[in-house]
């Protein structure tokens, strides 16, 4: 058993950008972060649903192929937009206060 290193936890907390960063100087980035966060949430939900359907054998190979292509394109587009707005995957996991992290 090990005791929790509080100092280490605080340092991690200080370096975590888990809130939307919107102010008058970076409103574009703040909005992009919000929009991309929502898209990422939806993408994960759709992907999870697709996984459950594959697991239950309720998708044909053709349907899996089509879904795969859609997710691949979405993935590429997301990476492109994240590059443009200098966002990382961690930036899309915003903190919802008492509800915890979004993802």
């Amino acid at each position, binding site marked *: *058993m*090990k*005791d*929790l290193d*509080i*100092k280490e936890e*605080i*340092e991690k*907390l*200080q370096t975590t950008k888990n809130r939307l960063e919107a102010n008058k100087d970076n409103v574009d980035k703040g909005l992009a972060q919000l929009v991309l966060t929502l898209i990422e949430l939806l993408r994960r939900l759709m*992907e*999870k649903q*697709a*996984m459950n359907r*594959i*697991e239950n054998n309720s998708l044909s*190979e053709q349907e*899996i*192929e*089509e*879904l*795969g*292509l*859609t*997710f*691949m394109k979405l993935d590429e587009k997301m990476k492109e937009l994240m590059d443009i707005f200098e966002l990382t995957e961690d930036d899309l996991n915003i903190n919802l206060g*008492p509800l*915890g992290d979004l*993802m």
Partner: protein
Amino acid sequence: MIEYYYIYAVINKLDVNSFDIGGVKEAQLLVYKYKDYSLIYSLIDTRKLETEYKYLMQHEEVLEMLMEKSDVIPFSFSTILLSEASLEKFCNKYNDKILSNFENISGTVEMGVKILISKNISDECKENDIEESNGYSYMIKKFKEFTNKKNKIEEIKQKIYPIENSIYKLVIKDKKKYNENGKIIFNGAYLIEKENMDLFRECINNLEHGEDFEVMVSGPWPPYSFVSLDERREY
């Protein structure tokens, strides 16, 4: 200079007037008495306190000191009100909730248990990635990650079971969070009687742990996870 009211906690005592230690920024601890309880605060010169280790420890030290002699409804770090009138307004508004929180946490403390694995689950699940050449193989790759992750979560639950089994008799309430992405795979908060703190640690100490994970126990904390003044969050 404008002074702001930095709040630490509400305690279920009225016979407190002075303290041996200071609060954040070494400010003097003050007491605002209201009906059956006291609000502990300091006057500080800033509207928002930065999250610095020193200040967090000072906040925590005040709570620890208060916990020794009373039940404590803790406030989050950097809870700041604007005036003494706000203190009264706060107590007026939340009086019933404060009293019901005291009922719920009487004589208790919060203990934390975290379980860490040596390797990030999602990294491990991605280890055997195959190159995606088309939609089908992309989805099959994702599906493999999905099933690996599911199996891992089951493993986590197997690891946690003996720990929970050993402490369940001591636990009044708990809040648990399983995490499939990351090194901290489990984060639990347990409300227990103050007198059971040592027994709680002992129960976890006595367990044999696997080499691939680590159990971290923290506390005693004021019962942060089990008090709320929010109408929507009942514990």
